[in-house]
């Protein structure tokens, strides 16, 4: 079977991200998965066990400051060289900021089509995409070149399939043009032990109804009891209740968890755009006419400051 390249998404703190495991699972349906690690020195070694566990038969690595010290361009150059050499049957990247950016450059370098926000990929290269805030399902195909797709997190259930990949170090020959955008500093912001928002199985979000930044503790408490991530509506972010990187919606993150809990969120289109493909939706809002209830599988009309602490207490009792 032919090779399918999976460009690895990982973080220093948590290692291989779940979307990478999803891509490896998807790649196994299409051919033989090879993982591609583009990062700092020693990155591939640290990730190899996990990548093998999910079926990576081989790991290509390009590492060091030449790769990691600049914004995406060197990564795209290395990847383009690899694609030309191994002629894979598909290239998969994560549908997140960096994955899309690398894919964008790769598409231009290879004069190859690109499909983003893919939630499924058939063996014949037909991709399924969700468009217009989840309201339209699109089947599409790359018609020039190989299937170059970015895969949206939480699209596939990762399943392990043991392999023992060897690491092949790639020769890094990036050009001066690739080094125009220099990363001078990386600052980690406090995140705690919660799962990453786009990858979480459970997301608990707060909106304007939460009232102030301090009250977001209630949202966080419920998220922690459910092992979930915390999100916020644009109204809550604009009011300064919660940081922007947790915004769910049209101009924020798109999430598709198993369970989405909306607290004090009216459900404006802006917000629905980012969460309406969630599997189960639960809402608490004092306004019984709020549009969020049109989506909710279970809704409670009432005061969230009474309902949420009671729910938290009930979960503790059951644990």
């Amino acid at each position, binding site marked *: 079977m032919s090779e399918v390249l999976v460009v690895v998404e990982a973080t*220093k703190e948590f290692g291989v991200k779940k979307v990478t495991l999803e891509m490896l699972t998807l790649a196994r349906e299409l051919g033989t998965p090879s993982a591609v690690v583009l990062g700092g020195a020693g990155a591939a070694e640290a990730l190899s066990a996990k990548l093998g566990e999910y079926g990576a038969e081989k790991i290509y690595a390009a590492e060091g400051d030449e790769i990691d010290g600049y*914004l995406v361009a060197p990564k*795209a150059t290395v990847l383009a060289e690899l694609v030309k050499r191994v002629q894979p049957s598909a290239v998969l990247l994560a549908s997140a*900021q960096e994955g*899309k*950016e690398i894919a*964008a*450059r790769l*598409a*231009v*370098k290879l*004069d190859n*089509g*690109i499909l*983003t*926000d893919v939630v499924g990929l058939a063996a014949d290269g*037909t991709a399924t995409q969700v*468009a*217009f805030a*989840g*309201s*339209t*399902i699109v*089947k599409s*195909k790359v*018609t*020039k070149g190989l299937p170059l797709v970015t895969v949206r997190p939480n699209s596939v259930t990762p399943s392990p399939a043991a392999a023992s990949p060897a690491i092949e170090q790639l020769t890094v020959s990036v050009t001066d043009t690739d080094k*125009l*955008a220099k*990363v001078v*500093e*990386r*600052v*980690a912001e406090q*995140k705690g032990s919660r799962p*990453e*928002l786009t990858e979480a199985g459970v997301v608990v979000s707060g909106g304007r109804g939460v009232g102030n930044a301090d009250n977001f503790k209630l949202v966080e408490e419920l998220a922690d009891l*459910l092992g979930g991530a915390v999100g916020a509506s644009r109204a809550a972010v604009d009011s300064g209740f919660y940081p*922007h*990187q947790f915004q769910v919606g049209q*101009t924020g993150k*798109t999430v598709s968890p198993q369970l989405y809990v909306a607290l004090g969120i009216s459900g404006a*289109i802006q917000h629905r755009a980012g969460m309406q493909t969630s599997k*189960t939706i*639960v809402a608490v809002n004092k306004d*019984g006419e709020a549009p969020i209830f*049109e*989506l*909710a*599988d*279970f*809704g*409670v*009309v*009432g*005061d969230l400051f009474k*309902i*949420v602490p009671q*729910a938290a207490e*009930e979960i503790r009792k059951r644990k």
Partner: protein
Amino acid sequence: MNIVVLVKQVPDSGADRNLRNDDNTVDRGSANNVINEMDEYAIEEALKIKEAHGGEVTILTMGPDRATESIRKALSMGPDKAVHVLDDALHGSCAVATSKVLAAALGQLNADLVICGAESTDGRVQVMPHMIAERLGVAALTGARKLTVDGATLTVERQTEEGYEVVTASTPAVVSVWDTINEPRYPSFKGIMAAKKKPVQTFSLADLGVAPTEVGFDGATSAVVEHTKRPPRSGGAKITDEGEGGVKLVEFLATEKFV
């Protein structure tokens, strides 16, 4: 500084949006078409840089005739002039071909700085800034929540999932911005009146030296095979809290095995 802002006209994300049944492209005919929201932040950032450092701000739009409305709206915020890439052959163009056309137009505008929104609300593909930078061989500083200009040196703060990165480059460069970067101004009455007289130059594909076969459906590198409207979600049980709302909520979560 010579600044070009990329502006895209999109169907209003606050209303029902559709793909056309005949050719699977975005239905712009029956939609309320507006400036892509993120682009307003790009315009604002360009105007702030001009106010602080001098220079000129040009709007660049590729789109059909009716995109003129969005160009005038953009100009009413304060930019000096606009360029409209308008050609019937462009209908059906993919992202790769679009980047080719925009890069060709930018090649004629000698921009020191290209600013655009990080993504459009219709496609949300997020690839255009890097595609254009790749073609022009210039730096791309993308996803900026803060931009500082010091002479020819640009520094941005870029939000990542772990925190943020500080990235720097020299002009010429492409910068894309999120809506956290500023608060776009509203056009003043004076601005709206002035916009009517500002120059809007039209470029055809021939003006840009791009062949019609390189764009549109003929030149597309990807194709939509089919699309279907997803059935709208229907609401489930809705109860009114009478003192036991929290417990009932957890009971529901338990039946769904979340607790």
